[in-house]
């Protein structure tokens, strides 16, 4: 493997990890920390993308303004949903699941009514850079930087601020936190809002590279859950380690050529065989198999395993 191919493979792996981190970070707070199976998480992602679309297409704001607005808008939606629905269902995991599924369908319906069921695009301007024989879009690097920034932000927030301490105390032991004077319902609300906002940010960042359509959340929700479940209960370490492991496997398997087939036709210039495989298809299969294996071996997820070992 030549040097530039090696470099591009590293970039591909980084890109796979970035996307998984973006998808999973918000869910890790909501599902990993709060134990809420939020089936509407995909629609928070969609709402983020549509916020950017609205800002750029209809309000004619610059792209980055739309991207900054998206997490705020979606956090607002998240807080509203927590206040109206989820708050009444804490401690009833199956009911929450059903309710959030309903919210998911409702949001898809609402977005479809407002924007129509058509695929829309957000063009973007950044250029590309050269890696040996390859040219690679700069935006992918921006995505990785933003994902790293979001992780760092979440770390600082939960580790060093009063809000973070209260939120962690609330999640660890709500009664004790409440007795110590923490407004626990407020903490639940804000944590849920934060999780929603992070999904909104992910939707906003990914909007320019994917088609924006009301049902787009459905394409991502499964991968978000897989990443969080494999990651286990520790939000940041879990998300990062599982996204790294799964992203690495997915990107690497996507690279291999798996087999050759003979082509039909009149073979004027040989060779007549062509490689099949090394596609996103096999990458996805590998990701799923690897996730199943990991969960069989580490039922608590990667971070749960580490926590047990200590």
């Amino acid at each position, binding site marked *: 493997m030549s040097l530039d191919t090696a470099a591009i493979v590293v970039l591909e792996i980084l890109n796979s990890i970035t996307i998984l981190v973006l998808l999973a970070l918000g869910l890790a707070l909501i599902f990993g920390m709060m134990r809420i199976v939020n089936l509407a998480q995909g629609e928070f992602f969609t709402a983020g993308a549509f916020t950017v679309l609205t800002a750029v297409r209809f309000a004619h704001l610059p792209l980055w303004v739309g991207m900054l607005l998206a997490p705020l808008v979606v956090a607002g939606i998240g807080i509203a949903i927590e206040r109206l629905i989820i708050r009444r269902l804490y401690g009833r995991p199956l009911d929450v699941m059903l309710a959030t599924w309903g919210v998911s369908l409702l949001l898809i319906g609402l977005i479809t009514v407002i924007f129509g069921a058509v695929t829309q695009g957000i063009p973007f301007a950044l250029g590309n850079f050269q890696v040996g024989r390859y040219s690679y879009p700069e935006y992918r690097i921006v995505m990785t930087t933003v994902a790293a920034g979001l992780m760092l932000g979440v770390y600082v927030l939960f580790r060093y601020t009063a809000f973070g301490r209260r939120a962690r105390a609330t999640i660890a032991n709500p009664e004790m936190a409440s007795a110590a004077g923490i407004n626990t319902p407020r903490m639940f609300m804000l944590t849920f809002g934060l999780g929603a906002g992070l999904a909104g940010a992910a939707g906003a960042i990914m909007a320019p590279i994917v088609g924006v*359509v009301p049902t787009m959340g459905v*394409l991502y929700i499964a991968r978000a859950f897989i990443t969080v479940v494999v990651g286990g209960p520790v939000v940041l370490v879990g998300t990062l380690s599982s996204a790294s492991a799964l992203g690495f496997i997915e990107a690497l398997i996507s690279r291999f050529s798996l087999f050759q087939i003979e082509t*039909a036709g*009149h073979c004027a210039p040989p060779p007549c065989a062509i490689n099949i495989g090394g596609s996103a298809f096999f990458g996805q299969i590998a990701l799923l198999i690897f996730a199943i294996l990991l969960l069989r071996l580490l039922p608590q997820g990667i971070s749960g395993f580490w926590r047990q070992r200590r």
Partner: protein
Amino acid sequence: MRRPLNRREFLRTAAAVGGTAVVPTLLKLRPAWAQGKKVPVGSLLDKTGGINIYGLPAIAGTEYAVAEINAKGGLLGKQLELIQYDTQSDIANFPKFAKKLILEDQVAVIHGGITSASRESFRPVIDEYKQLYFYNIIYEGGVCDKYVFVTGETPTQQMGPIAKYALKKYGTKAYTVAADYNFGHISWKWWDIFWRNGGGLEPVAGGKKGQHVGKVEFIPLDVTDFNATINRIQEAKPDVLMSFLVGGAHINFYRQFAAAGLKNKIPIVSTTFGFGNEHIVLDAKEVEGLVACYPYFDELDNAQNRTFKAAMKKKMGDPNYYIGDAGAESYNGWHFWAKGVQKAGSFEREAVTKALESGIEWDSPMGRVKMDPASHHTIFTMHLAAVNNKRGWNVIESFPNIPPTETMQLCDLIKNPNQHTQFQPK
């Protein structure tokens, strides 16, 4: 308190129950359209979900065609009643709604189906109930079925002109990306033949012959990230990229390809780009210059198309509405059927089939179109065109009366009327 049932009431109830059981059987013998003032006709298209980039224009073309036929007095003195079901880009819905159209709504004809996977999912239902069916969209060719008429284009009609143009203009090394289902796989097999032969089913004398570099990649319909694929394309250094990508998620490929700075380095040709109006979703700076080959572009200049375009813009309430190939082919499908009914003087399947097999031709918005009697496929004038920077297409070259040769070679439904199959290259 309940009264015991007396004899009169018992008889009345029994008659009612027996009657409801018998009536549908009678109705089946005499279809709805043989009695009422209205003739129910059915359409199965994806109004929502990832395939609706084709479904929405096809629905627009369908609704306009039926409204137009009704405005001109209907068919055989009867108005058409269009019954549409949204199949939601979910294959499971097609056989379900097809049965509903046939058994409950008792339609005279079914139009629709978009992906080849959806078509093959309910073609057995069509065959089982001997239902007249029109498939009005570009596909991989080879369907040979007495009950099916195709008004979409097939590999010879698209790949022949595309291969010749790409070999002359770009070079001999091609890389292929295809949607991972029957359409993509069968299209790849035909493309392999056309590309290696220099643009024909048999080797074309003189001229260059194509070859493949790198891999053929089959990409599932829900994949949205093409980073690795785009890097592999760069590794293979093709002269041209052939795209059989399909649906809303795959639109992202073109955007990501342009973002990697490849738009001006590796030209793209496609048999699918554009009939879902992808060139409207994407920006000119992302796809300008991409080459495709269809029988219909809004830019075609003829009297029928001018009327058609004005009417469609009015219907959609959008002066910039782009109809596209999917809309025009749906429109044509309904008119082919209407001409068959008028010629037959009947809505019966056998009579309409016979009329259509007499070789109906007419001047449509895409110009003269002709139904090939033996293969039930359509002969068009094909236009090779490139995306321009005005959210439209510039026609490069036109090829009059191109037949769907790959299917016509194998399929003769007049000689073998009991055929219900799909041919594909080995």
